[in-house]
């Protein structure tokens, strides 16, 4: 639980640190929002060993669903968020059931295909989604009477959600369910041979990651008050893979470190050069080639050695 406490403290003091670092509060919110996405994605990629390039679809689907409900209905914010997350969850169950029997590259390709379907629906279904223009001027209603209009207040809202997400992930990782996920990553055939219905566990992991992505997606749309097709593009799905790798696959703190760092760097570098994607590409290549275990992976190992 020490990691959770450390995270709580960091989230609490972050607004004081971000401005001297050359950032701003909305950027901090964005970093935390992507941390939520990456925490869930890490359960799928890092712990279960399943690579998906399509989880931005659930990120975007939840954002669009919530946005539409906020614009066209009188539903309170919490209900619209919940509806968005549930819609994404249902979509993940259906798609997961269809593709979970495939493995490796075939599975990854199918996740891209299904992800891009959502992207194209958002692009083409102009009357509902606003097409390329997206949904703009989404009202940021009050949450249980709480006003979220100021950047700092909104940040603390995302920080609380992020902390909750981390606690849920912690409990999943340290449950017997989490043990089975790790066992599937280690040796799927043996896992089935001792009596686990591997497909069901993989599906569960897939859907849990989608739910985290969905929560993250609703926050993101609320932050920008704007939903656009690129929220579900496969490039965004790829981005969360990068975050997970840079942070450290299969470690608890890895996705948080990776998501915040990559989001910050993206923002920082794109402010200074038009070629920021090139720079990020180089960063990614360096990590995959020379630091495959990610930042958290190396920190953990260094600590283990130090204790000996």
């Amino acid at each position, binding site marked *: 639980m020490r990691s959770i406490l450390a995270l709580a403290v960091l989230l609490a003091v972050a607004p004081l640190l971000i401005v001297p670092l050359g950032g701003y509060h909305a950027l901090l919110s964005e970093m935390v929002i992507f941390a939520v996405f990456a925490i869930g994605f890490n359960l799928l990629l890092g712990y279960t060993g399943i690579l998906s390039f399509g989880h931005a679809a659930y990120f975007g689907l939840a954002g669009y669903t919530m946005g539409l409900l906020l614009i066209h209905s009188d539903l309170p914010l919490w209900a619209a968020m919940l509806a968005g997350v549930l819609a994404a969850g249902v979509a993940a169950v259906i798609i997961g059931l269809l593709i979970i029997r495939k493995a490796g590259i075939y599975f990854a390709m199918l996740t891209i295909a299904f992800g891009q379907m959502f992207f194209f629906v958002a692009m083409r279904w102009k009357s509902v989604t606003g097409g390329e223009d997206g949904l703009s001027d989404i009202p940021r209603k009050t949450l249980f009477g709480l006003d979220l209009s100021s950047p700092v207040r909104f940040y603390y809202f995302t920080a609380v959600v992020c902390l909750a997400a981390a606690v849920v992930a912690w409990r999943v990782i340290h449950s017997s369910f989490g043990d089975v996920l790790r066992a599937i990553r*280690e*040796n799927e055939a043996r896992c*089935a*041979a*001792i*009596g686990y219905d591997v497909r069901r566990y993989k599906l569960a992991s897939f859907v849990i990651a989608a739910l985290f992505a969905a929560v993250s997606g609703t926050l993101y749309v609320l932050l920008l008050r704007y939903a656009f097709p690129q929220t579900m593009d496969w490039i965004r799905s790829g981005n969360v893979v990068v975050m997970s790798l840079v942070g450290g696959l299969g470690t608890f703190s890895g996705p948080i470190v990776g998501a915040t760092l990559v989001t910050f760097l993206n923002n920082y570098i794109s402010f200074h050069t038009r070629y920021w994607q090139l720079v990020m590409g180089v960063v990614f290549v360096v990590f995959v080639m020379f630091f495959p275990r990610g930042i958290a992976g190396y920190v953990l190992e260094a600590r283990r050695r130090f204790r000996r």
Partner: protein
Amino acid sequence: MTEIFRTEGLSVRFGALAAVDGMDLSIEQGSIHCVIGPNGAGKTTLFNLLTGTIRPSAGRILFRGEDVTGLKPHELARKGIARSFQITSIFPELTVRENLRLAARAGRATDPEARVREVLEEIELASKASVLAGFMSHGDQRHLDIGIALATSPALLLLDEPTAGMPPHETEGTVALVRRLRDQHGYTTILIEHKMDIVMSISDRITVMRSGRKIAEGTPTQVQADPAVREAYLGGVDASLSAKAHQAGAATEPGPPLLTLEGVSTSYGLSQILHDISLTVRGGEIVALLGRNGAGKTTTLRTIMGLLPPRRGTIRFDGHDITRLSPEGVANLGVGLVPEGRRVFANLTVGENLLLPFFMSGVPAVERTSQLRRCFEWFPTLVQRKSNRGDRLSGGEQQMVAIARAVVGRRRFLMLDEPSQGLAPRVVNHLAEIILEIRKQGVTVLLVEQNARMALEIADRAYVLEDGRIVHEDAAAVLRENPAVLGKHLVM
């Protein structure tokens, strides 16, 4: 005695191959039942059928009177059928205790921790409970593999070569474990095993398989006396081959040593496979390398080819030290390997398969055509098959393509790994003639064979491997007439 498990006419086909063909098995409660047979007999495929990894194309599986045919692996595991694996299958990045706990929970143990403690004691790993499984020795990992199966509290235990790759002192521990499980805990075990002394001492009943079929069954004494079993392990040849071989053999005079191995030792990860192997092949010879399954024959060929560098020793070919040479380097010196299972490219035609060796080596087109023509002269049956895809060929034809592909491009030395595997007797004869013809054309041959009779008919000399060591060396003609040595090292 009560029957706990039976199969009726269990069969599975892979394309044209009947890997398991009409197996009837009946297993008594509380017994150790061994399944044996030469390489490629279908033993592991049988296990895959019994545990749901492969679906049978025909037949039934009955467990405690219930029809369990077609159930998935996890469903069979929950019914109480647990298996260990031929190639160690554990969770390497979890601790030993975590490995067992997963299995105990999967087996719905009322108190998983207690079950873990029991199994830790049973497999004698209590002192290593907190060690990461992947960091243990090979022998400990083999025991953990069995332990994972045990922790699910099964009613039937399937062990696939539990002593594979173990040195003798560790083997004893495993045998004692399997025996204890029957004698003290009443476990029912089906066991695949190649070490015949173990099989004979531990089994209540033995089923002998060959080419997917049951050819004999009974107590160890009954099976040992069965002539069909001896035949299965030594293989067979036509009488006509003998005459041809002697005719062909008389023409050759062995040249100077072409290939020499001195004190070669090779390991796969933690388990040492070859111990101090020394052998010589002279130019123009056919040398046979014989031995039971798992003796180290394939490993010897892979070591020579540079696919698996040795830990110790030197390998010389035609004056060059090739001990640390890459496989391409070895190939460029004129060494060809025909791997076990033939590995013909299924999507390429016969012609394309044969031309493959030229694509990389920058051979001019004229040369390529002449090489291909030479190839078809040697293997006339392949001419009509030139445009057929690799997967449309019979087993014998695939073997021809594999050999042809290895000898084209000026190979001087050819290594063949079990070329007769899965071929009909008539085809085996033809194959033997082809090997003789290749030698006549000036190619030296190192032949690994399960069909010892065939190999000894056409070879000049033979080495016998056992547990990674050379235990016998003799002229083929002498060894052929020495049933004591053949029986001891090759049969049971």
